[in-house]
């Protein structure tokens, strides 16, 4: 957690004490952190939110090693929820459970429940492919397919059997606009996606994810491989995306978590230590452990 030591946490205009630790070395960009305040100016609390994902008594094992220990949490709908915590704390593992990407890893076993739409996603009757269509995911490293920009975005639709060119054209345009990439690529949709810059690739991947109209988008450290300007663009995009989608983001960058998320969960060694609205968690954490982490005492 070296990087976090040098980070500065900015605080919102409520004037609460800054948890500054060091001189800010990253460019400051003005993000309205009012996102943790709803339109009425009232503080939102978890209890008031509609639930998108409900995790109860969830345990996950890699072979004999327990990676997630009895996690209980509810992730609110159409909000940005951030998972923070030191490396190996299980935040990415938990994220990957929401669309069952952990199935791909051998020797993973789970117990407990994760409910989306009141259905346990580990139920035998669940169609994993359909679950993943509904729960989109963006990875740390941009992973466009070796296809054209157009085909990358259309990919999700094509595998759903949508091949009508006009429908695809419309969805590709809408998705690229939704991912704030349209203006940059509209003249070269047939170029290979690999020709885009890292930040553009990541936005392309997001466009690809939103093209199939998921309900939830999981972001697994989406900006960690990007430069500060691209990171800014992604963060702005996340802010826009939450209008339509429930977003869960894993990040190492606490500043980012503070900037983009409405709620933040702090995990440590496979346990959920604290889960609260971002403002509270960063300014007035309940747990000593959380405070130690966000103030950079360890990580």
């Amino acid at each position, binding site marked *: 957690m070296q990087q976090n030591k040098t980070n500065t946490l900015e605080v919102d205009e409520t004037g609460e004490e800054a948890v500054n630790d060091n001189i800010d070395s990253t460019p400051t960009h003005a993000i309205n952190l009012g996102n943790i305040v709803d339109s009425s100016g009232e503080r939102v609390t978890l209890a008031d939110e509609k639930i998108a994902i409900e995790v109860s008594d969830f345990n996950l094992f890699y072979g004999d090693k327990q990676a997630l220990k009895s996690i209980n949490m509810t992730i609110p709908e159409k909000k940005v929820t951030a998972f923070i915590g030191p490396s190996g704390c299980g935040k990415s593992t938990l994220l990957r459970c929401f*669309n069952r*990407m952990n199935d*791909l890893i*051998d020797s993973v076993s789970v117990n407990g429940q994760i409910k989306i739409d009141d259905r346990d996603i580990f139920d*035998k009757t669940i169609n994993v*492919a*359909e*679950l*993943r*269509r*509904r729960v*989109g*995911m963006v*990875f740390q*490293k*941009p*992973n*466009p*397919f*070796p*296809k054209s920009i157009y085909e990358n975005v259309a*990919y*999700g639709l*094509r*595998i*759903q059997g949508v091949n009508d060119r006009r429908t695809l054209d419309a969805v590709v345009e809408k998705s690229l606009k939704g991912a704030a990439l349209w203006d940059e690529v509209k003249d070269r949709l047939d170029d*290979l996606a*690999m020709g885009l810059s890292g930040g553009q690739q990541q936005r392309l*991947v997001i466009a*690809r*994810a939103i093209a*199939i109209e998921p309900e939830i988008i999981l972001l697994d450290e989406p900006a960690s491989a990007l430069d500060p300007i691209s990171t800014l663009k992604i963060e702005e995009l996340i802010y826009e995306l939450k209008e339509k989608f429930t977003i869960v983001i894993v990040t190492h960058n606490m500043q980012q978590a503070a900037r983009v998320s409405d709620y933040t969960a702090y995990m440590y060694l496979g346990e959920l230590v604290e889960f609260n609205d971002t403002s509270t968690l960063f300014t007035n954490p309940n747990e000593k452990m959380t405070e130690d982490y966000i103030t950079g005492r360890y990580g």
Partner: protein
Amino acid sequence: MSKNDISITESVLPDFNSAKARNHRNKRHINDVITRYLMSFGGVSVIIAIVLIAFYLFYVVFPMFMPAKVKEFGNYAVPGDVQQRTIYFTMEEQHEIAIRVTDKGEVVFFETKDGSVRDKLKLPIPENVEITSFSSGDPTQRTLALGLSDGSVILFQHNYQVTYPNDERLITPGLFFPYGETPTSLFDEATPINFLTVQYDGEMATIIAVSESAKAKILNITREESFLSDEVEITRKQSELLLETPSLVSMRMDVEQRDLYVAGSGGNIFFYDISNKSNPSLVDKVRAVSSNERITSLEFLAGGISILVGDSTGKISQWFPVRNEANEYSLEKVRSFNKNKSPIVSIVPEYFRKAFVAVDEKGHLGLFHTTAERVVYFSKLKQDNVEAIGIAPRANAIVYQDSNTDSLHYLDVHNKHPEISWKSIWGKVWYESRAGPEYIWQSSSASSVFEPKFSLTPLVFGTLKAAFYAMLIAMPLAILGAMYTAYFMAPKMRQVVKPTIEIMEALPTVILGFLAGLWLAPFVEKHLPGTFMVFILVPLSVLAAAALWEFVPERIKHVIPEGWEAVLLIPVVLLSALTAILLSQPVENLFFGGNMPLWLSTELGITYDQRNSLVVGFAMGFAVIPTIFSISEDAVYSVPKHLTSGSLALGATPWQTMVRVVLLTASPGIFSAVMIGMGRAVGETMIVVMATGNTAIMDLNIFQGFRALSANIAVEMPESEVGSTHYRVLFLAGLVLFIATFCFNTVAEVVRQRLRNKYSSL
């Protein structure tokens, strides 16, 4: 602080300028330089080795395409009586001694290098009788005959005895009269013989003579030695031949004494069958030249099958009898040479090759080869007006006499490979006695006057056929297997399967070929319907097993861990294959009358060879599968996980991910796997040598064999004489393989690079 203690603040590295540090840096630098040069040396050596191999192949092949070289070695006054006209020249095997026959019956043996007379003999011509015609039999028999003005013929041979007194070669020339020195009379009255043709092979002689009044007689003399005693019985048969034309230009009889060709002054050629000496018959009559031209020369090509017709425009055409479906012969014009522009004076065939020398009125000398349709050499002689010309048996020397200066010219000829031309190697060639132009490879035969057929086309075809059937079997199995192993199989199982298949590659192909030829070929022949049913039954059973698996209760399914399901298919595949083989006999009895190969040939007209392309496809497919499997498996396996995750995370099923993302990304690797496999199939030798009949036929039929370029080299190289045309053609085959492989690999590499640029991700 003690000496052993290392303080954190104190650097453990020696000072940059210290001797130790400098030494270390020097050593490091030297290692660096040595390694760099070693690497460059290795790389450059490989390139040099390849270039040298290519160069050596070119070096061996190149002489075949060189034109012949002709150089005048001697020029001296005609030995013997200059006043007499020369009617015949030839040389003995070593071209040390030449013979000159004159129109007054003088035979002069002389040294070719300076013209000094070795021996001078007078033929036994009676008083007041003149020589009116001359004939030479097949040059290899060395039989000559003179037609005399009294209607009789003298037959004689020129012979050379080689002795080694004082360890030096001494050639003693001499004459031999097989039927005595007394001329044999053919005509009752004393009429001059104007045209004469003879053949004598030691056992039988045939003399055909045409008198001044155009009466033609055939005399056949056979000698038979009795088994019990030394008695020799000589039988003479005489008959008359009715000529179609009274005016002749020339007349020639073949070496077998069966065919007679008569060139009439009207430009026609009459082809007689004289195999029955007492009843000769006209087989065909053709017009050999257009109406205002005349035939000036008629000569057999070596072997006595083709005749060469020289005309007054300088054209030389080759004709031979071709048999049609009704078993009738007709004389066909096969090819012609238009190099000479003035009337052909003389055509002299080579002794053993299908080549000849021709001279025209203006003194142009040409060396031609009929099979290759090639003018090997063409040039104007120093002196025109060639009176007579002769060639050495090995075609390495020519003597000719010009009537301007009456001097004799001895030419050294370097003409090793006239039978090779682009057309004779790649094109359709009309070979002697064939019905039409064909692609044939037949490099040798028992006969010394055999026409070698060096068409590489059927061999290239065979190579491609072998590769095609091998790839047909190997490609789907290897690529699909690789896809499954890399993408779906449990890692533990993959750890067993992959090395096992890779070990298959280490199996010597000679063993595969041996098994294919001696075990698989008879097995497939015996179970032919079963073999084909395997292709249908096995995939169907696999599909059926997969469908059944869906209905298996979860409890039992869980016994088999994910990715291990393929193990269950092993008994399914084995059982279904066994069933197919067991069903073979009943199916054969039911539908194919108990014998499918026979049924194929009688009902469908498809010939069935036991060692056929199907067997090669199996064996070579087996040999190629590990290569293609291993490389494609690596390609599929190394598709970045983040791509497959990306696809799966978008709701794609594993199969959709495989087809739409993994295969696409792995395509450069799979492509190069296929190309490398193809290269192996093309160059593979032992399997095709052992599992095919090695018949050089061009036929796509899967039930027939073929002969591949590589197999051809392996089979024929031990028998070919070093430096011969055959030897060089085999090297050419090697060069073709080399170039083909080079092109294959270059194309593969270029395509692979382009695909990789396109599809490699990040």
